């Protein structure tokens, strides 16, 4: 699949961020165009999750610009960034274990004021994820890992985002569930939502992405169309195991 052209939906320019004295991002540049599926790969601790956390406002960028849809969002509260149209599906799923499936989904729509549309979306999401529809009154903590992943994705969709951030969607899931999850992500993109994904499984991620970025120690060291990265020697050696 070729990447759509046009101005970027999300741009990060020279972004720096740190956890206390430990630098996490050291001059990061990255762009995502509307309709793209972009993946970010790299070793543990390279700063992939920090990148997503900086975008969604959980980690304050100390320097640099983060622009979404022509508007500077660096330094905004997570609530405002979500309202602007960016939803973050966090690593490890992080569903609220003692809330029901329905309540978890409602939390996804927490910033929305259009109550009737939220109710419609809730029904639509349940149609889309029949496994959740059967368990709407069940505590999320009692779901299996795969079901929790569905719930985490559905919850993020409840915000009606234009850009979705996925952090390690395959982590800790059985291979068949990973396949389902990636199918859902591809489907979300097909329906017009732009996707930026961080993924440990570089091969799977690059196979379905349009473009990829390779991160090392807080900055981008390589970028290009996913097919080129898959064929790149450095990428093959470092991240694809051969």
């Amino acid at each position: 699949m070729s990447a759509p052209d046009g101005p970027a939906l999300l741009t990060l320019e020279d972004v720096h961020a740190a956890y206390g004295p430990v630098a996490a991002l050291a001059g990061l540049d990255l762009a995502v165009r509307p309709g793209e599926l972009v993946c970010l790969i790299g070793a543990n601790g390279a700063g992939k999750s920090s990148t997503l956390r900086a975008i969604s406002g959980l980690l304050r960028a100390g320097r640099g610009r983060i622009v979404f849809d022509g508007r500077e969002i660096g330094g905004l509260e997570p609530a405002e960034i979500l309202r602007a149209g960016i939803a973050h599906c966090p690593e490890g799923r992080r569903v609220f274990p003692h809330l029901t499936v329905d309540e978890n989904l409602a939390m996804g729509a927490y910033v929305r004021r259009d109550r009737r549309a939220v109710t419609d979306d809730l029904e639509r999401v349940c149609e889309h994820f029949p496994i959740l529809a059967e368990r709407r009154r069940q505590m999320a903590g009692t779901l299996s890992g795969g079901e929790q992943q569905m719930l985490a994705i559905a919850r993020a969709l409840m915000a009606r985002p234009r850009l979705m951030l996925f952090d390690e969607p395959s982590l800790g899931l059985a291979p068949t569930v990973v396949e389902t999850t990636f199918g859902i992500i591809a489907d979300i993109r097909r329906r017009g939502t732009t996707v930026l994904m961080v993924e440990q499984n570089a091969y799977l991620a690059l196979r379905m992405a349009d473009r990829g970025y390779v991160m090392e120690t807080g900055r981008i060291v390589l970028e290009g169309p996913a097919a080129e990265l898959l064929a790149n020697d450095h990428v093959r050696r470092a991240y694809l195991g051969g």
Partner: protein
Amino acid sequence: MNGLVLGGTYALLGIGLTLIFGLMNVVNFAHGEFYTLGAYAAFATLAGLGGGFVAAVLGAIVCGALLGGLTERVLLRPLRGESIDTTMLVMIGVWIAMQNAELLVWGGVAKSIPHPFPTEPLVLGPVAIAPLRLFVMALAAGLIAASYLLIHRTKLGRAMRATFQDAETAALMGVKIARIHTVTFAFGSGLAAAAGALLGPVFLAYPSMGDLAALKAFSVVILGGLGNLPGATLGGLLLGIAEELGAGYVSSGYRDAVGFVIIIVVLLFRPSGLFARQERIG
């Protein structure tokens, strides 16, 4: 019967404290002072303004919630992320400051809070109960029910529970954590003040009345388990009934001791609380 009167107000105290402790990880040593504040607010409404008993309780809740919200906003919010010891010291400071302020304003002499109920007990079959106590019990039950509805049936309550379970993910959903903390502290303080307004007319109002109440509230939280609303409710009722039975069958001098004996026994055998399944709110 009297056990339920005490128990209902203990439950209110416990719910307030367990919410604050569970959600904010703040050990609120000043909790008892909001109870005292509630009693004096009720005194002011009933004796000073000539309002009714329901108005007195509502006035107390409003006072408690406002001062509680202010305390959180001014003293605790800047300390978010600090260790639990720091906030504990701050709350001890608030406790001392509030108690001395009460002493300054109301004086050290215990005040009897006037109430509009007849003192003649109502006899219902085998039990006799003062109308005031019956009314206190009904209001306490109503407030407990209202707290449940707030926590379990409203968007705000859902956000509070989500924040308790995973604050960072709640923030990702757009929940303003700082605001949830202020609301929670105001809510908990309002409940403590309600308890003070309810029990004040049954006993007496004096500046250090909150100390014992705070101890009772901590006991209830220990009984029920951290952040456990049903636990706090049942723990409160249990403590109230146990004290009343202890006072009746052993000696009224041992009323407070009975409660603490129970706490020690619970801590020995079920250290995470009688009703603990897991850490939870709601």
